[in-house]
């Protein structure tokens, strides 16, 4: 019993060769931006330009979510006037953009990263602190 249980996990876990964590970039304040510096561990796996394009798009999406524009002001004022009950029935602008981001990451994973044995984890699952890139061992591709 023990053997199969741990073997199953080993099969899942052993495929993971390493994890790279891309930390947040606070140079512009507390807005959600991630460092787009290309990590050395990914040099053998993916094109630098491709990776930086993904990061740039993600950063742009997060900037869009946190933008202080007329839409966010209207939403804020409406919420205040309704004693914040409007949030119970309406999805906030931020949540809509987060859904867009989740879709984008999944798309990127399917098209670009999975074929190269990489997996991007949506930062929202890590509390918007890091983008976790899981590097799978090459032998998992032969399975």
């Amino acid at each position, binding site marked *: *019993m*023990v053997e199969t*249980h*741990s073997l199953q*996990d*080993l099969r*899942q*876990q*052993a495929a*993971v*060769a390493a*994890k790279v*964590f891309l930390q*947040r970039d*606070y*140079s*512009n*304040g*507390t807005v959600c931006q991630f460092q787009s510096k290309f990590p050395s561990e990914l040099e053998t796996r993916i094109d630098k330009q491709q990776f930086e394009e993904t990061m740039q798009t993600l950063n742009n999406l997060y900037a869009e*979510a*946190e*933008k*202080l524009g007329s839409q*966010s*002001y209207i*939403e*804020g*004022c409406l*919420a*205040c006037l309704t*004693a*914040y*009950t409007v*949030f119970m029935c309406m999805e*906030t*602008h*931020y*949540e809509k953009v*987060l859904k867009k981001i989740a879709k984008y990451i999944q798309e990127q994973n399917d098209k670009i990263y999975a074929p190269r044995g990489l997996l991007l984890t949506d930062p*929202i*699952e*890590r*509390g*918007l*602190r*890091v983008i*976790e890139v899981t590097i799978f061992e090459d032998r998992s591709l032969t399975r």
Partner: protein
Amino acid sequence: MKNCEYQQIDPRALSVLPQSAHNNTEKTVQRSRRKWEVFPGKNRFFCDGRIILPSQSGVLPLTLGLIVVTCGLFFAFDCPFLVKHLTVFIPVIGGALFVFVVFSLLRTSFTDPGILPRATPDEAADIEKQIDTSGSSTYRPPPRTKEILINQQVVKLKYCFTCKMFRPPRTSHCSLCDNCVERFDHHCPWVGNCVGKRNYRFFYSFIISLSFLTSFIFGCVITHITLRSQEGKSLVQSIQESPASVVELVICFFSIWSILGLSGFHTYLIASNLTTNEDIKGSWSSKRCAEESGNPYSYNSIITNCCATLCGPMPPSLIDRRGFLSLDEAIPAVSASEIELPPFTVKSDAHMCTQSTKDVLERMVHSYDVHGLCPPATPKTTPLDLEVSGPAAASSEPSLSAGCLPQDARQPVAPPCPPFSRSYKRRDSLHSINPAFRLASPSPSLSRTTFILGDAPDNGFIPLP
């Protein structure tokens, strides 16, 4: 048999018989658990994770009780007279204000203030790898800080030992809730929750509407008593006819000063894009910074600052209370780290091979810590907090009780007022001694003390009169 042994290592089954532990795992497979059920912080959850509260809800029932009682007395005893003599809009306005106040209060109390989830074991290990230069160590190293540039200004990020990560800027660890909270303002016992990024606007609307409500009730009650005494009766007679008004007057009179003061203080904070925490510590005051450096988060325009804080986009909750645990997370930390070890040792990477057994064990201990499984880990913050903030608090307590507010515990009242902040400036001088501690810290207790003192103002709002 072996299965039973395996289950015995399961930390969640430590207090349970192996038989039932086995059943527990089966149940986990059958019924996926939600993330709130394994949340490591000191919080309570209701409605299957929809509502979040700290484990100690402070005096929230008292606050609610005071508001409801005062308004109830107002509607029952003053409104009939005022409707007859003035206008019917008085109870309408009072009612609207009351509803707004209660909604804002409940929203502030039951909203996640911006809790940051703790670092996963992999993340924590990655950060440790970046910090540790010497490899294994037998004692806890001195508090770790990282300097970053925000808008061309140097800001120090502190490492949180409980959450195993470098705290983002403006984030602070609340020891009452045992969570790191983004844009931490303060832990308000009256509201029974931390005030942080996600519920600051609710808190602000609560105190503003409460100011209006108390002023409104105060004004109406004065008008009521005045009108009564104008009908040929003396003031004492009018008061005797409506004793409830006196109760309301007393409550409102004492509340108004503190609530109005607090509203004014928070309006100032919003206009300059500061948090109470930063203001108390004097992080961006010109006296503390040698060169000309202001608040790097300010937009340098009062209107933009106000709009950004109050009408900015509503950030989502980062802790995903109602999400389901994946099977990986449901498996206890021990097995996860055990299974991760073989790949690490098998790798031919020289760096990995040089890891000593102690490091590996330390990593396992860290993953215990992260999941809050090791009992000594979690209470670490609180007992030391109490020990250390004791002497510091003793010096500030007299000034708190003397200068801050009247001793009447029935007031829905607020922490910061000038004498209060002065007492914290005194505590700041205690802080300035600490760098000496940081530089030479041979013993773990000393360095831990430094860490706690550095966070003391976070829990300084708790011992309120």
